């Protein structure tokens, strides 16, 4: 039995160099030992992505991308008629929502421990692009059930493009394929959501992982290991790192499937169980939770629509430039007292903005939203200042 197995592996190795591949990617790929379970979130993202692709495939088999048929294809055919159709739909909806939780934690880890700093700028940029692609995938996907919330979220967000000078109004009609969000919008969002965006997600995930493999993982202390140090002080990806990953994935799946079966309403808003009505806006519209903070920034400048729009776009992209905004040579937040404080204020502010995004934007809530928006940008403005202070401290030999 051993000889036969060895023979087959040898046969594959001569054709695909799998022994070398296994060494490079698995058994001789060393991860620093001083990492915590926040470093497991990358694998969780890939797990959720696979779950979304498979569940997406099965709902795709019964979904009808037509304004007259879409709502019933989801709510009657898939949810009621197809055996276990309800399960695949629940998994897909909850998966999409949970994906952003996992993404935010993964990005938060990167921000706190300085994983965006040299030599990991490309890791950060490809990762950030993946976040934007995932947001686009969620946005296009949300229109597909053609419920009231689906429809009015798409109507509101596409209207924003009208504000672009000169080309705005025509651009919006071009994006929609109609004067309002209609069947043409549905079918093109369907094509993007099912084909183009998943392809781009997979391609850029490949590039992102390649970039990570080249520079190696960061660690809690932000200290770069040499190749020799990695071998002696690190752990091999397989089987050591992956064994922890299997456990983390199992626990995550308990959490995930608990939500899928017993606590899924946060991912399927009741307003979306009413078919889209082009002539009536529901009294409350809001995006899914993961967009609420950015939505609140849009409403934050309540006294100026244009400022709000610019702030909205800025808020979605500013973090991409972190490698050039935060230039302190110290990587890990564990060794940066000032940065640590700014970071936690930013996290609290993000939660603050998220909650406000769900509330009616009037009176006190309007002003709180404005303050929250200022704090959000305040974080990025503070970073160069903190970097300067830290650099001076190093020169004086103070910070260790």
């Amino acid at each position, binding site marked *: 039995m051993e000889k036969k197995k060895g023979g087959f592996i040898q046969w594959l190795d001569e054709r695909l160099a799998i022994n070398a591949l296994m060494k490079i990617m698995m058994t001789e790929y060393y991860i620093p030992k001083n990492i915590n379970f926040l470093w497991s979130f990358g694998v969780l993202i890939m797990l959720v992505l696979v779950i979304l692709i498979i569940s997406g495939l*099965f709902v795709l088999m019964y979904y009808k991308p037509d304004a007259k048929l879409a709502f019933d294809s989801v709510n009657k055919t898939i949810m009621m*008629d*197809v*055996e*276990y159709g309800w*399960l*695949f739909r629940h998994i897909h909806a909850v998966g999409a929502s949970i994906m952003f939780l996992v993404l935010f934690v993964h990005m938060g880890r990167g921000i706190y421990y300085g994983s965006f700093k040299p030599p990991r700028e490309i890791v950060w940029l490809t990762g950030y692009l993946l976040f934007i692609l995932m947001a686009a995938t969620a946005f296009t996907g949300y229109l597909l059930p053609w419920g009231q919330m689906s429809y009015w979220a798409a109507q509101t967000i596409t209207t924003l493009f009208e504000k672009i000078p000169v080309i705005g109004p025509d651009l919006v009609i071009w994006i929609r394929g109609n004067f309002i969000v209609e069947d043409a919008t549905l079918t093109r969002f369907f094509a993007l959501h099912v084909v183009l965006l998943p392809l781009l997600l997979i391609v850029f995930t490949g590039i992102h992982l390649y970039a990570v493999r080249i520079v190696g993982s960061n660690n809690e202390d932000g200290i770069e290991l040499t190749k020799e140090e990695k071998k002696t002080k690190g752990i091999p990806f397989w089987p050591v790192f992956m064994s922890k990953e299997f456990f983390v994935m199992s626990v995550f799946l308990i959490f995930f499937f608990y939500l899928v079966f017993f606590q899924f309403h946060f991912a399927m808003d009741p307003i979306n169980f009413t078919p889209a009505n082009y002539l009536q806006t529901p009294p409350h519209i809001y995006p899914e939770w993961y967009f609420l903070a950015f939505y609140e920034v849009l409403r934050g400048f309540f006294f100026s629509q244009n400022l709000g729009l610019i702030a909205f776009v800025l808020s979605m992209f500013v973090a991409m430039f972190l490698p050039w905004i935060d230039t302190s040579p110290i990587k890990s937040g564990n060794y940066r007292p000032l940065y640590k404080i700014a970071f936690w204020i930013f996290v609290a502010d993000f939660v603050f903005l998220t909650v406000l995004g769900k509330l009616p934007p009037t009176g006190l809530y309007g002003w709180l939203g404005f303050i929250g928006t200022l704090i959000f940008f305040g974080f990025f403005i503070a970073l160069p200042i903190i970097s300067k202070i830290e650099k001076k401290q190093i020169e004086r030999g103070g910070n260790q």
Partner: protein
Amino acid sequence: MAEEEKVTRRDFLLYAMGGWAAIGVGASLYAMYKTWEPLPEVKAQATVKFDLSEVQPGELRVVAWRGKPVFVLRKTPDMIKCPDRTVKDEYTVVIGICTHLGCIPNWEEDKKIWHCPCHGGEYDACGRNIFGPPPRPLAIPPFKIEGNTIVLGEEGPEYKKLMKG
């Protein structure tokens, strides 16, 4: 000795873990398999009722059953008799799909035969293949007789008798 023990214990756990994971994969594949089953509206089409007394002698009716055409011909006394293929003494009830390559034959009133346009196969008024490439007579669908009504899709005693004979 301790080394071997460690190795086997790790392997046992690995196999237990792998086996348990495989059960999960199996259950997921089962759920996926189930999603391809025909939907309730389709399953409802599985049986179709038809009133035979509606058909005039010499008239051919085509009844849709499970998406397929079923020829119901009420024979006149001068047409071919074939007790081993006749329903309720005077009806030919056959699935209108040519046994050669699946086209739908056309009834030719003057010749009292079915003629398949694809490769020229011919069937008599009892559905038996009489000319051309078709290898077998037209198939008889499972049926049940309830008074004047025929229920296509259910195996009644009359159907079982025809199949035996």
